[in-house]
């Protein structure tokens, strides 16, 4: 039953309009597909709701206090606009959100901040500075009853009541629709130096990356690329390497970044550090990593796997014996992006079976509609956790009108 709610696309301009719209959907029991500008619409199970609610018309910075390291933006504010504003003050989003747009058929920089937090998108620097959710100080949102609520605030520390703001991070629009988000920001890193290693095996590379993480040099990027993926970068030395490429990034003010890079090369001498990138060349490389340049050319299924670093190489080794995969390890192996052949299940059965043995979980980021409709896009949960998740969902969205089934069927 859809009652009188107008189906199709809604883009409320204010929080009140948004709440009103949800209340109308509640009254008419109309399921809603929730999005910002829709760049990640194809992640998850197809929602198939009659009405779409977008926050794209709720745009603008409510507050930006550089000396307090805090920024409050309406949920539909484009990430690019926020980053441009921060750059004017030599600041940045420390979690360096990965930009899924280009691998999903959109241009770079189009995501909204609501989408970034809703999907908890963190980039390579997550290992040093924390995830997107770690930087959420507070939110305003509309729950599945059409009520506006706030959680947290705009200050750095806050244990006043339950932390619902960070809980919404990574919930993919299934719990509440965020209308405003307060974020912690940090001074921008002035210099980024990148040490490159060529031709390391996965196992050896992960070993080197973990050693780097165990140094006091505040390593902010630890990446290992299979040869075929390295070839898709624009940097000539990386693209032309024809072997696997391993990259370690250190940042800080220039003299410190130089010192840290030198120190790391000494520590990792046995792994034969081959080349060091600095300045724009270094920044450009990590910029390409951030837009997943290595997965932009082919439309193959793309998985995001989270695991314990020391299991990462074994996991890919084991998987490679079953299907033909290309892997990019980030977070010193704690995060693996896996490109699989265009199989009916996108490789789900083999990936999940391997993870069951070695630990970790997988999310299918890119695949044809038919593939996504047929398998679990998000990692199936243990029964106790599934039951707990259903309770959480019910506490926010009792009628199940937000993005029904997007993460888990029947939820």
């Amino acid at each position, binding site marked *: 039953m859809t009652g009188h709610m107008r189906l199709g696309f809604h883009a409320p301009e204010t929080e009140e309009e948004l709440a009103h719209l949800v209340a109308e959907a509640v009254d008419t029991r109309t399921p809603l597909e929730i999005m910002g500008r829709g760049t990640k619409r194809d992640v998850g199970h197809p929602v198939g709701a009659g009405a779409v609610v977008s926050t794209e018309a709720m745009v603008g910075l409510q507050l930006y*206090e*550089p*000396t*307090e*390291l805090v920024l409050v933006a309406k949920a539909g504010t484009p990430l690019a606009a926020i980053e441009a504003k921060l750059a004017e003050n030599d600041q940045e989003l420390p979690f360096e959100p990965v930009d899924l747009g280009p691998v999903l058929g959109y241009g770079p920089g189009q995501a909204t901040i609501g989408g970034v937090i809703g999907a*908890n998108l963190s980039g390579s620097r997550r*290992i040093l500075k*924390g*995830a997107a*959710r*770690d930087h959420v100080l507070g939110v305003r949102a509309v729950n599945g009853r059409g*009520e*506006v*609520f*706030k*959680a947290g*605030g*705009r*200050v*750095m*520390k*806050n*244990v*006043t*009541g*339950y*932390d*619902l*703001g*960070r*809980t919404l*991070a*990574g*919930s993919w629009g299934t*719990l509440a629709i965020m209308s405003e988000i307060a974020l912690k920001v940090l*001074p*921008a890193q002035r210099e980024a130096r990148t040490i490159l290693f060529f031709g390391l095996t996965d196992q050896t590379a992960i070993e080197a990356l973990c050693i780097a*993480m*165990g140094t*006091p040099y505040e390593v902010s990027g630890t990446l290992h690329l299979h040869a075929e993926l390295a070839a898709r970068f624009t940097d000539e030395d990386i693209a032309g390497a024809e072997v696997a490429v391993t990259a370690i990034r250190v940042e800080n003010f220039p*003299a*410190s970044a130089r010192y840290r890079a030198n120190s790391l090369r000494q520590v990792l001498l046995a792994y034969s550090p081959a080349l060091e990138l600095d300045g724009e060349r270094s920044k450009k490389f990590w910029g390409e990593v951030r837009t997943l340049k290595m997965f932009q050319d082919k439309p193959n299924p793309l998985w995001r796997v*989270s695991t*314990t670093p*020391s299991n990462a190489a074994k996991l890919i080794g084991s998987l490679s014996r079953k299907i033909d995969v290309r892997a990019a390890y980030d977070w010193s192996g*704690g*995060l693996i992006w896996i490109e699989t052949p265009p199989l009916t299940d996108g490789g789900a059965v083999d990936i999940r079976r391997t993870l069951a043995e070695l630990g*970790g*979980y997988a999310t299918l980021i890119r695949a044809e509609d038919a593939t996504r409709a047929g398998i679990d896009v*998000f990692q199936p949960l*243990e029964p*106790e*956790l599934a039951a*707990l*998740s259903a*309770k*959480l969902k019910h*506490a*926010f969205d009792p009628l199940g009108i937000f993005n029904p089934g997007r*993460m888990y069927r029947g939820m």
Partner: protein
Amino acid sequence: MSTLILPDPDRGVLARRNDIARQLKRLVPGATVISDQEGCRTFECDALTAYRCLPLAVVLPVSTEEVAAVLRFCHDNHVKVVPRGAGTSLAGGALPLEDAVVLCLSRMTKVLEVDTSNRVARVEAGVTNIAVTEAAAKDGFFYAPDPSSQIACTVGGNIATNSGGAHCLKYGVTVNNLLGLRMVMMDGEIIDLGGSHLDAPGYDFLPLITGSEGQLGVVTEATVRLLKAPEGSRPMLIGFDSTESAASCVAAIIAAGIIPVAIEFMDRPAIHVCEHFVTAGYPLDAEAALIVEVEGSEDEIEYLLEKVEDIARDFLPTSMRRSQSPEETALIWKGRRAAFGAIGQLSDYYCMDGVIPLSKLPKALDEIGWICRKYRFDVANVFHAGDGNLHPLILYNANDSVQLERVELCGAEILKLCIELGGCLTGEHGVGIEKRELMYEQYTDEDIDQQVRIKEALDPSWLLNPGKVFPIEGRDAQKMRGIELQNLGPEPEPEIESEIEAELVEGHDAP
């Protein structure tokens, strides 16, 4: 002391006290069960000692399974449970209830795993905060959150209040350093959340549980992030002739793109008390002092301290001194860490935990001074300036019942001020019983209702640590609005108030 409204005790449970204790002993033979009055007295309060209540019984389990057995029993018998770590809560989060079993995890003290290649440690919830770092220190790693009670407080308690510490400006608070949990729900179900990887499938329950003050489940194990210790660190002391200059200097340091690992603020009373206590060389001539600590290699430290000094010069410091040796560094921090204890030796104090936006720091300190004068109390300020987490210590005489009542009113006014300035009630101590009636100052009905719905979803019978966080059990929150604590005692003398008001109008220049 004002009369605290607690949930009505369950008469049926009280009548079955001996029977319940007997059954608990049978249920968890390995655990210690305390039910005699003298034994229970140890647990009658936490570090908010103004409120005391003897519990029904105390259980000290040694395993997750025992915790599960106790919770299942209590659930089935409708017995309330108050989880407790080391009892260092400053907000009454672990205050027992007459009809509740205190579930104290202080005997679950095993460090289960230290994995330096993946940079994680798995520990039981009763492990002290400092013990995590101690377990990792031989490999040069540490656990970042460092509340000043770190020698005593437990990891479980840190999770309950999302503890921070002096170094959280750089390293974040508990939630930012937590990867996984084992938790027992009120019905006895054991749930694992997250793990030793950097994010978890499905909804992220870690931030929901962290800071929930033991109301959603009982955490029995935690997997935390370990970090490699920096090559070195060094603090410097900067004295200023006004709190405003000190506060402006903090903002300028951050604006310059420098995030020191810690920026601690002390006002004149705090400086004098701490200096008297440890002789750390704090600037006695200053109105305010900052401890600014930076980390890195020797060159990095030099570079950063020079920059900090350059910035500080713009605010006409009365003194600037870098620590010259590890001994001096230790002394500087010893003074800071001992601040609460040192002040406590001089006087009873009521410790606030409000947070304000950093730009409002001068105004906040000014107003706090005036509020305390209005109520005729001295105040000392020593806090984490980088993140705006204030800890005004209001000095009073706990044996004077009139002062006791007034100090609470004074504290409440300070917290309301923090909210007016755009901040919040509590940064790291938690709401507990202390601040629950102030929740509506910060939140609307809808805000509280949304939190309460989560409590009800995970603990429908409100058996787990009820009477805390929400204005009386949440379900009655609507009814509680506008109801003041009972027996507040006489109003502060009206003539003093009008005197102070008059001075306020004149612009704060009066003596």
